[in-house]
């Protein structure tokens, strides 16, 4: 079982729609990172959140870290085809060897 569960696993939407993807765990994380990965490339960091309740905005993307630092969400407003990709969350669990653990990812397709 994944330490970090991402949902949904797959999402196919039309351009202009809004969406939210989730990253959940029973563990507490000292920090949580979101990456986007395009086909044939390595993941690229979008944002890192470190404080419970923290909200960060990156243009049309809004990231939230849960108050208890066990979960996070990524909301995209007015999705565009360029948002297509695999979204990965990753967290550092101080009680699990202090390693960075990745979730299974949400594969997003935005159709024009």
């Amino acid at each position, binding site marked *: 079982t*994944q330490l*970090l569960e*991402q949902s949904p*696993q797959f999402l196919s939407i039309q351009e202009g729609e809004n969406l939210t993807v989730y990253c959940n765990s029973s563990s507490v994380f000292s*920090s949580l*990172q979101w*990456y986007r990965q395009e086909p*044939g*490339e*390595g*993941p*690229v*960091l979008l944002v*890192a959140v470190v404080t419970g309740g923290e909200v960060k905005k990156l243009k049309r993307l809004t990231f939230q870290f849960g108050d208890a630092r066990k979960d996070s969400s990524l909301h995209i407003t007015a999705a565009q085809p360029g948002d297509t990709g695999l979204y*990965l969350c*990753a967290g*550092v669990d101080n009680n699990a060897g*202090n*390693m*960075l*653990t*990745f*979730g*299974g*990812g949400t*594969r997003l397709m935005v159709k024009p």
Partner: protein
Amino acid sequence: NAGVTQTPKFRILKIGQSMTLQCTQDMNHNYMYWYRQDPGMGLKLIYYSVGAGITDKGEVPNGYNVSRSTTEDFPLRLELAAPSQTSVYFCASSPIRWDTQYFGPGTRLTVL
């Protein structure tokens, strides 16, 4: 700066063969990591290094070996390739332990 470079991009191995996946970074990062990504999945940590001469096991180290003789290079060795090692391998580096990961483009390995 080239960032993190990996060679080769693609490789097909026969069962029992060995090979070394090369990884080099030019950002002077102390921390380097090897991950594998199976189809449709997130990333699993194989090995990591906190500096030249120091390496440690990650979540899935069996069947792999690493060395870190310089800050720049972190090669991953497969001694007896098995079909279960068919995957995409990513090398990453970071300036701070478990901080933002800078990924290479990946090596797609198939073991037949």
